[in-house]
């Protein structure tokens, strides 16, 4: 069983295997920003000449501003802590038009990124 000691099981401990992997490195942070709409997968043509780090820093800065963190553009401890907080799985934001890129066709559209118009 999952371990607990209180009658109401309020101290129920999750098993190590069922814990979410902490966001502790660059790759995990990039995935987070992509997953929740802070950045987009860009095609080589659209990101030609733009350093990968630049777009990441932009996305991190946007995330930091929204979360009232110093907008350093860097993956510092407070930023990672904010990414690791319990949260809803619906994406947070729409990117400005110039950053908007088509979503990968295989992915269904979650509620935060709805298509603009329907025929």
């Amino acid at each position: 069983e999952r371990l607990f000691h209180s009658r109401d099981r309020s101290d129920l401990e999750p098993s190590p295997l069922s814990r979410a992997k902490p966001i502790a490195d660059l790759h995990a942070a990039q995935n987070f920003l992509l997953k929740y709409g802070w950045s987009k997968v860009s095609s080589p043509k659209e990101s030609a000449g733009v350093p990968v780090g630049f777009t990441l820093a932009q996305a991190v800065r946007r995330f930091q501003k929204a979360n009232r963190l110093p907008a350093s553009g860097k993956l510092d401890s407070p930023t990672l802590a904010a990414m690791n907080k319990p949260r809803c799985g619906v994406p947070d934001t729409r990117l400005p038009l110039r950053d908007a890129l088509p979503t990968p066709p295989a992915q269904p559209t979650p509620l935060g990124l709805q298509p603009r118009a329907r025929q």
Partner: protein
Amino acid sequence: KRFLQMLLPKSGGKQEGSPDTGASRAFSKKTLTWRLVGDAYSSQLSGDEQRYIFRLAFRMWSEVTPLDFREDLTAPGTMVDIKLGFGRGRHLGCPRVFDGSGQEFAHAWHLGEIHFDDDEHFTPLSSDTGISLLKVAVHEIGHVLGLPHTYRVGSIMQPNYIPQEPAFELDWSDRKAIQRLYGSCEGSFDIVFDWIRKERNQYGEVRVRFNTYFFRNSWYWLYENRNNRTRYGDPLQILTGWRGIPMQRIDAFVHVWSWGKDERYFFKGNQYWRYDSENDQAHTEDEQGRSYPKLISEGFPGIPSPLDTAFYERRQQLIYFFKESLVYAFDVNRNQVLPSYPKKMSQVFPAIMPQNHPFRNLDSAYYSYTHNAIFFFKGNSFWKVVSDKDKQQNSRLPLNGLFPKQSISEKWFDVCDVHTSTLNM
């Protein structure tokens, strides 16, 4: 069928939502059904507890929108508007995988699906540990209805879970956000009145306070004037809050309050009841031992029934009774109708703007201590009666004139029905 419904154009006449805010109305009908999917219950709480929490979460949205929500346990799954379920990792045929305990705790999808990560420690109403299932449910229902995330402090639609304070409710901005999509709550009322309470403070001094009540059908709301909303958790059933008076569709309420008199009456049909404020129930009999309810024709000779509404004018010590297009002025000291009455309502309370008048069949006449004014309600509109202060500011206003009509929902906010199945929560 639900997918095709989604593709159909929405019904017109209402704002669809703003592309700038990312909000868009998801449903075009008034009553929505929901179900906790049978094979997707949480392993952490009892089934009844989970369903109760979801019922409450839906009711909280219903208390501030023209929508109501009904749990549907019998219809085919495809006919249920909103389906909820718990899962772990790969779950419920969903393309998004839950990540285990921590981080993502739930998500919501177009077509009305809400999934909760059962690896999270969801807790019921009484717990102050773990993640409140109620709060998460209210948030996800917000998405299903069409609201996006916001970082506004205090909003239920913030993406991160914030441990709830003792009072977790939908604040003004969340209410207005959802009302931009679905409109404000409208509808006529049976009676609206201020209820006077006399209390003693710690020094034994008598203080007079009042509360505002709106009654419709078999339920009622307490309206908190200082907060511009109804009391959290309203409406409630008349049966439980007001003992001994008719359970529904009351015609009129009058509080005769002057030196030596403090009498409160409810009217329905050809009868009336007197309410005992001290004991919080209707009197069963008067001082002479005659039982209530009594006939209006006996207690108020010359007054017809059934009535539309009535109110007590304190300075003149008259009760104005309204029926159809007529008004009757009743002298409470002489216990009779004034000789020149009945008169046309439009004569006693003339329109300031021609033709802008209820004319007949008022729903309610209400003296407000908050606004120090009398209001006439009919349908979704109200007319304010010219007061002494109005006349001082503009002497050309006719005595007891009616200002042009306004919308009730723009002065008294969020007086919303809920589904009758949730009235007893």
